[in-house]
């Protein structure tokens, strides 16, 4: 069928900020969709609130809105742009829900907008639990026994009827948010309340537990003439009970027979037809009883999903691209398979490798939360690895998630030593068994410990319900490890006694040189040279969608230890390697992938081949057509050097992937690799505290007094000398890991220990903490002779809160011109001194009109995409060209742009995933993503950023205020403004006294322990519309914590800083005065010229 001619303008909805359950996979799918739509000549309008996306680059769509993803704002866009259709299936659950609510409120009908990709009926059928259950029963597919609860009483009745354990799933919720397993009536009641709150339609599915069953997923596509294909099957290594987003997953499924597979396919076809997808894809999740093969359906996602991104990368089949083409009426036969260049999309990919997905967690950021996995997703990122067997893929996967491990154990970092495991006592054995029985992020390591401690495959299966096939493969690794260990050096560390055959076998099973060095008692370099000498080198095999049946035109590659090289490396072409950022984590996410993609685009413009190395399946950088050649590999020295060996690039770009590649800069340099841009020497100056201090001194720049310490006693002395409070942090870390503000010696001891652990062999840094200072971020680009500031951003929160968690505005809104001049001068001095070629980020603190340098990062910062979007200049792209030798003058960027509009970046936090965690901000970064508000002035931009970040700021109602003593004199003007705007103020006695003294009318609430109704009751009843609560100190009072956890539970807008409160009140004022307007990026950019 030819593509539809009755539609011309299509509105695409993005997925907003990166949150747990919704990460950059939707930038990947959205970008592919944008490209596909424009390829077919449709006028494309895009809305997304996340500036750190490729999809919001101004050339991706015809019109790009960075606006909050709310019904109100999108309605305004629809009103203005009048699209013929809306494509809601590529923006995750956010996009789908938004389309659904636009439909419910009659907006789509009013403006004659059709939902393509998935009709409103199809969305309802898959998402509405009741309709879904009915539909499945109609086509004879079993669903777990269940009932829909819309109230607590109803939920308990249903639950008691089915029997425990029970799974609770709130309807229309992302990533299993609010989902839980209840083992008794008390838990059932507790989780029902939470679930009903979490569900936007106040529905919770109470379901029979299929814990321990196999979890099998399929990606299925269907076109408008009813052709259906299966893209791939996937088998979760972790059985039912762990959210699939948290599970280790293999593709294809490993333990299904032909008959079972065919039966699953049969069900998939029935389901996609019944749900009524007529141009798109679905993800289907089944549970299968491993004892008798009984199958029940768990869930259908009528949209692109995290799993479909994984399925795409695992098979080479671009699901998002194809889904988009199907949505506009093309059929599978009409969409070419660009990987093979020969076949069409009407075929089913087949693979000749094993794909493994493993998740990255950040429990260390939220120490108060239990380190267990359940049906509510907690992973912040993932890595995909490919091997010729499961063991190789598993070990590569563990290396890929960058948790400091180099494979499955035996890398010198095991928590339990071999000696202890040889004769485990009952305490240790019980610990191991518990860690295997209760799903957690370290389970895979404990399975290894269990095997070493003598547990059998069968015992581990009984404990974990992980299929014995996987456990036996792990056992093979343990056996091989024992075999290798026999050749350990006892005296001489420069020898290798292992046989070439055994070494080759170890490499085929994914052992890293680092692991082998540990097992054999020698240096990693020695293993490498020994391997090379004996020709044990990896070859690169393609992901070609067809298991080698056709010669693929555009495959991507993975390494393995087989006989024939299949990488196609042109001998004489110019090429540059870009090191990606690896799995998403707090502190390193989509912003860096954005930069890596721009590097690839820039190289293409300069006719240089771009070689991407990355292992994150969610990203645009690992899309098959982003770079010239893509290597799906872990980002470790060994793996990167292997690729450098065959590619022989002009150089390597380490500036863009965040801290991961930057940490590799020096080792790569030492291995003789040429780094493009700022030299390794200058990178080291910026990263090394002592060297950096000297430079600052030389440049006559201020720095908060600071020193470095290796021990607590050293630290104590330093702190005394520079005076409390001090900021304690490890060197070479990301996202303020283990960073703390310390007010006294006692706490200093605790945190020095923690920081030293994270810091490893590097010293701990101790800085004087500047209280109430304004923090400023500056991004700069330099070509070695010309340096241009990209943007100066003023933080809204005061220094002390991690810059990744602060809201910030560009241009600045309160700094004097003198301070700004000082900042500029300092920035240029630093850039010149470090001879920056590429990007640099500097963080400053401004106190009493003095400018202090906090840190310098000689690389792309988290704010690069935000600045690029705000000023309309692709900084990362320019930086790449500069690294290749171009001059900024030639590139036409020689002057700092200070826009007339204001852009505000706000951070988004995962607190709702970690029950019990306090929501206050500090020097350790906790946010997962960001949004941007853009408007004519600061207040409007700020309010947009708040709405986009999910804060549903009120226009009227009740505000609860409770601030610490230090803030009490600052709160009165804020409260007064709120009164003037018509809000009622509630406070407890302390704050109320201060406010009353300033003549502000306050309703006094009792302290929580004193009497009721207290503020918690009011919050539960929906009577509080805004909470202003600043934390009292390092160890917060119980009351505060309860208030703040209720804020999250009941989704009440809040702020925990005075600066934030100020900005919020100003924003509310704007909201009351004037309606917010929408304006596309392209128009803002016109005004800049």
């Amino acid at each position, binding site marked *: 069928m030819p593509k539809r001619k009755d539609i011309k303008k299509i509105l695409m909805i993005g997925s907003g900020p990166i949150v747990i359950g919704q990460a950059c996979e939707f930038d990947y799918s959205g970008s592919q969709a944008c490209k596909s739509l424009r390829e077919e000549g449709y006028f494309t309008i895009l809305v997304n609130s996340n500036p750190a996306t490729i999809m919001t680059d101004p050339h991706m769509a015809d019109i790009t809105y960075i606006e909050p993803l709310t019904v109100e704002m999108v309605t305004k866009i629809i009103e203005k742009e009048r699209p013929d259709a809306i494509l809601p299936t590529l923006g995750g659950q956010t996009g789908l829900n938004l389309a659904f609510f636009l439909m419910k409120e009659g907006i789509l009908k009013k403006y004659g907008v059709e939902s393509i990709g998935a009709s409103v009926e199809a969305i309802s059928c898959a998402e509405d639990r009741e309709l879904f259950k009915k539909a499945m029963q109609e086509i004879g597919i079993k669903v777990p026994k269940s009932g829909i609860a819309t109230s607590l009483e109803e939920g308990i009745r249903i639950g008691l009827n089915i029997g425990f354990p029970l799974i609770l799933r709130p309807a229309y919720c992302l990533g299993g948010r609010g989902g839980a397993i209840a083992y008794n009536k008390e838990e059932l009641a507790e989780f029902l309340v939470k679930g009903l709150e979490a569900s936007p339609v106040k529905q919770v599915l109470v379901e029979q537990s299929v814990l321990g069953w196999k979890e099998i997923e399929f990606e299925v596509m269907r076109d408008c003439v009813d052709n259906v294909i299966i893209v791939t099957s996937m088998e979760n290594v972790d059985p039912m009970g762990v959210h699939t987003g948290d599970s280790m997953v293999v593709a294809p499924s490993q*333990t299904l027979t032909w008959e079972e597979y065919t039966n699953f396919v049969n069900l998939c076809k029935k389901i996609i037809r019944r749900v009524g997808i007529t141009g798109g894809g679905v993800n289907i999740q089944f549970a299968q009883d491993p004892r008798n093969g009984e199958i029940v359906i768990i869930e259908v996602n009528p949209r692109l999903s995290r799993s479909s991104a994984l399925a795409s990368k695992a098979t080479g089949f671009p699901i998002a691209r194809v889904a988009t083409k199907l949505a506009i009426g093309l059929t599978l036969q009409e969409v070419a398979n660009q990987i093979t260049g020969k076949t069409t999309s009407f075929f089913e990919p087949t693979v000749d490798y094993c794909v493994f997905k493993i998740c990255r967690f950040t429990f260390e950021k939220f120490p108060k939360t239990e380190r267990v996995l359940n049906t509510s997703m907690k992973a912040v990122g993932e890595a995909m690895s490919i091997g010729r067997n499961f063991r190789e893929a598993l070990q590569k996967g563990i290396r890929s998630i960058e948790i400091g491990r180099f494979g499955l154990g035996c890398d010198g970092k095991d928590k339990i030593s071999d000696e202890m495991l040889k004769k485990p006592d009952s305490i240790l054995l019980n610990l191991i068994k518990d860690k295997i029985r209760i799903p957690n992020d370290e389970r895979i390591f404990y399975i290894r410990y269990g095997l070493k401690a003598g547990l059998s495959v069968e015992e581990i299966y009984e404990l974990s319900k992980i299929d014995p096939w996987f456990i036996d493969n792990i056992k093979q690794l343990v056996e091989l490890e024992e075999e290798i260990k026999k050749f350990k050096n006892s005296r001489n560390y420069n020898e290798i006694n292992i046989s070439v055959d055994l070494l080759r076998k170890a490499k085929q099973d994914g052992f890293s040189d680092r692991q082998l060095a540990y097992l054999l008692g020698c240096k990693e370099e020695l293993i490498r040279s020994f391997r090379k000498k004996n020709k044990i080198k990896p070859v690169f095999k393609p992901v070609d969608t067809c298991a*080698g049946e056709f010669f693929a035109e555009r495959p991507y590659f993975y390494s393995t230890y087989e006989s024939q090289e299949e990488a196609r490396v042109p001998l004489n072409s110019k090429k540059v390697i870009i090191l990606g950022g690896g799995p998403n984590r707090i502190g390193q996410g989509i912003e860096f992938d954005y930069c890596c993609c721009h590097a690839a685009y820039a190289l293409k413009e300069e006719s240089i081949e771009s070689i991407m190395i990355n292992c994150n399946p969610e990203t645009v950088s690992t899309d098959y057509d982003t770079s010239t050649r893509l290597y799906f590999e872990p980002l470790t020295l060994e793996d990167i050097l292997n690729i450098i060996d065959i590619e022989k690039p002009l150089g390597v770009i380490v500036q863009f992937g965040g801290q991961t590649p930057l940490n590799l800069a020096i080792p790569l340099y030492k291995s003789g690799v040429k780094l493009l841009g700022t030299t390794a020497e200058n990178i080291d100056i910026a990263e090394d505290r002592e060297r950096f201090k000297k430079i600052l001194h030389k440049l006559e720049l201020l720095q908060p007094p600071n020193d470095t310490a290796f021990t607590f006693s050293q630290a104590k002395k330093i702190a005394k000398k520079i005076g409390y409070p001090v900021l304690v942090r490890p060197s070479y870390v990301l996202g303020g890991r283990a960073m703390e503000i310390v007010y006294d010696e006692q706490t200093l001891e605790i945190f020095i220990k923690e920081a030293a652990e994270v810091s490893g062999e590097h010293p701990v840094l101790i800085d004087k903490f500047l209280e109430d200072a304004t923090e400023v971020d500056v991004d700069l680009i330099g070509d070695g002779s010309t340096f241009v500031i990209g943007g100066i951003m003023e933080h809204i929160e005061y220094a002390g809160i991690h810059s990744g968690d602060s809201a910030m505005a560009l241009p600045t809104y309160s700094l004097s011109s003198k301070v700004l001049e000082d900042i500029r001068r300092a920035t240029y001095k630093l850039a010149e001194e470090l001879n920056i070629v590429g990007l640099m980020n500097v963080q400053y603190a401004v106190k009493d009109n003095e400018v202090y340098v906090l840190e310098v990062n000689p690389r792309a910062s988290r704010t690069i995409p935000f600045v690029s979007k705000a000023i309309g200049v692709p900084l990362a792209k320019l930086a790449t060209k500069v690294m290749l030798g171009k001059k900024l003058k030639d590139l036409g960027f020689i002057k700092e742009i200070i826009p007339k509009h204001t852009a505000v970046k706000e951070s988004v936090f995962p607190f709702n995933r970690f029950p019990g965690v306090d929501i206050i901000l500090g020097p350790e970064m906790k946010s997962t993503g960001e949004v941007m508000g853009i408007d004519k002035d600061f207040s409007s931009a700020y309010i947009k950023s708040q709405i986009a970040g999910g804060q549903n700021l009120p226009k009227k109602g009740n505000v609860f205020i409770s601030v610490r003593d230090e803030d009490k004199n600052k709160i009165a003007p804020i409260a007064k403004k709120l009164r003037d705007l018509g809000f009622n103020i509630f406070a407890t006695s302390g704050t109320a006294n201060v406010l009353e003294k300033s003549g502000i009318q306050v309703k006094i609430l009792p302290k929580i322990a004193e009497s009721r109704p207290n503020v918690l009751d009011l919050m539960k009843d929906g009577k509080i519309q805004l909470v202003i609560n600043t934390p009292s100190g390092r160890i917060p009072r119980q009351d505060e914590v309860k208030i703040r956890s209720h804020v999250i539970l009941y989704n009440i807008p809040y702020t925990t800083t005075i600066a934030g409160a100020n900005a919020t009140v100003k924003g509310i004022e704007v909201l009351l005065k004037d309606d917010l307007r929408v304006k596309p990026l392209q128009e803002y950019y016109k005004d800049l010229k």
Partner: protein
Amino acid sequence: MKAILMLEDKTTFFGEAKNKGEIIGEIIFNTAVVGYQEILTDPANYGKILVLTYPLIGNYGCNYKFNESKKVWVKALVIKEMSRIYSNWQAELSLDEFADKEGLFILNNVDVRSLMVYLREKGSMYGIISTDEFREKVLINKIEEFKSRPKKSVLKEISIDKPKIFKGKNQTKIAILDLGITNSILTQLKNLGVTFTILPFNISSKDILKYNPAGIIISSGPEDDVGLKEVVGNVRDLIGTMPILGISTGCQVLALSKGVKVRKMRLGHRGVNYPIKRPNSLQGEITVQNHSYVIDRDGLEKNNINITAFNLNDDTVEEIESKEYKFIGTQYLPLSGGFDEINPVLIRFIQLIERS
């Protein structure tokens, strides 16, 4: 022990074998991820050296109920990695044990990806596997000697020796010419409720008519067997008298009996992901295929035989139909789409019978 696989062009691959042995045969591949037992027991693969491109084999073990016929017909199985354990609730024994019982030689630990890519570039080939003899000249001579042997039909070995009847609840009677019929077809016929008789491959047309069938199915089986000539002769007499369905090799028999030529493809279609399309339609099917020969398009057109489906990848003929001759032929295997579902072609065939 170490074993060699040498191709007829002297290219060598190495692997490991548990048992001693020497196997010579044509090398075929299959790109399916699951289904090793089904492929091994499909008589169409008689005497072949089977290479599976998926590297992890044996994961879910074996169960005799998954056999496509009474035994394994493949001579040697070449794989990357034999799973050490099997895990599936239906498994009765491991693939290794199954192979031992069935006398199947397994060459393990081979870089099958490289082998597949090589065959893709060079076309299909004969090869020899040996655990004792590694000298190139000797091995090549053995392949040459094997290839020069006079061709002998294997159909007798595969086909049923005397007619066997299955009574269904349905009165429709079908005769099956057994060139290597598979259980996945028989199961569907049983589910359809038809009464069918499985007949020896070389039964004469007269004898077929004695069973008074309403339709005939010519099954899949070895493609280049010399015994097919006899089958073609018998079938020729029956064409037009009643509906006939030819499956894979059976389809080629139909074409040959109308004088249409078949030719061998460079590589063959062997896997579970082959798209076919109907002429002038955007609808198609993903099919399971296991054939090396294709029917000549021009010949079909000259004989007024309709091509009702093409292979979407290479445009080869995958399904033919003739109203005049009352036959349907499928190059692909009309397997069930899971559970008790019947392949649409079998339904079409039954409808054709009911109409005539």
